[in-house]
């Protein structure tokens, strides 16, 4: 995304935030409509099988409750993804500490991601989903944010807590791994 388009996108978000803070609730609707689908996609690709919509809702509630701390150093979108990532991690930790303790390994995340495969009738689509599911968690985060949302490496680095260069490497490794998976399958 060119900087001009990114800046324009960020300005729209800031204008909507300002409208909401002045009491315009329709601005909140527009903000949710702009970002909720991407957040839901991200949650699902991170292994959230049930309650992805709840996590997205919690993300918005937390974000709107602390908009006073949003200084626009990063884009609203990046901030929302960061909040959601923490919520996903919290939920996964809580599930690990639950009464039925299950070691959450990469394999389990793959299974959760593939649990929706019944909805994917196309064989080729299923193979692509499996390829993404077999990425490491960090590779999957970077790859999803890059391919699904078109985020620049700078924003991805903020979300996953890494550097721009490392994210670039993770993305290209992920792409190579997917190509290999599909060629071997």
């Amino acid at each position, binding site marked *: 995304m060119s900087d001009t388009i990114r800046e324009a996108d960020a300005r729209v978000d800031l204008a909507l935030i300002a409208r909401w803070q002045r009491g315009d609730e329709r601005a909140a609707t527009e903000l949710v409509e702009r970002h909720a689908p991407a957040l839901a996609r991200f949650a699902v690709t991170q292994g959230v099988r049930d309650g992805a919509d709840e996590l997205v809702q919690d993300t*918005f509630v937390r974000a709107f409750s602390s908009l006073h701390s949003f200084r626009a150093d990063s884009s609203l979108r990046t901030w929302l993804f960061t909040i959601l990532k923490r919520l996903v991690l919290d939920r996964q930790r809580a599930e690990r500490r639950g009464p039925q303790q299950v070691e959450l390994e990469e394999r389990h995340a793959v299974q959760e991601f593939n649990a929706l495969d019944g909805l994917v009738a196309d064989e080729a689509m299923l193979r692509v989903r499996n390829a993404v599911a077999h990425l490491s968690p960090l590779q999957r985060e970077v790859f999803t944010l890059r391919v699904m949302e078109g985020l620049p490496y700078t924003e991805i680095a903020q979300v996953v807590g890494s550097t721009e260069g490392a994210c670039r490497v993770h993305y290209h490794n992920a792409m190579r791994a997917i190509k290999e998976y599909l060629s071997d399958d």
Partner: protein
Amino acid sequence: MTDCPNGEMRDLLPEYAHGVLGAEDTARVAAHVAACDDCRAELALIGRVRESVTLGVPRTNVAAIVGALPAPRAASGKPALYASPRRDVAWKTWQYAAAAGLVLAVGSGVVWQRTSVGTGARFADSSQVRTSPAPAETTHATAPLTPEDGITFGGGLSDLSLNDLQALLGQMDSLKTLPSTDPQSVTPVIASNEGGKTL
């Protein structure tokens, strides 16, 4: 499927797929993809990934999300940027504490006043007790005070009957001298070995 050696072009493919590149970059990538089989295949793979992942994602209920959001602070005229819900809670807590303090202060004042009135009545009652064994001619005993009479902390001339006052005046007239109310003059004395020396 092999990788294109042009890393810059490969890096731009996801953003090209999203249509968010500027005009110049879009033209460059389009020209490269048209001539590069690897990048064309990778671009097609990106499209398939987007499609397959999107298929399994539940639809978000925008209305439910918006309904769960905290309300903006439009009434105060202050933007929510400076009035988070957490600060609202703190402000309300202070308001409750201030209200509780006010009620406590008013209640204490009322209790103190009633206690004082009761004490005054007790003083009045005791004055009545004192005046009860008064001489026979003292028939006009002081009536006990009621709370409506105000606060009285002891008896005085006003508690005496007319006869008492006349008797008191008669006793004063019979006195040859009245005690002086002027302070005594003080003569400074300087102490010395031989004794005090008056200046």
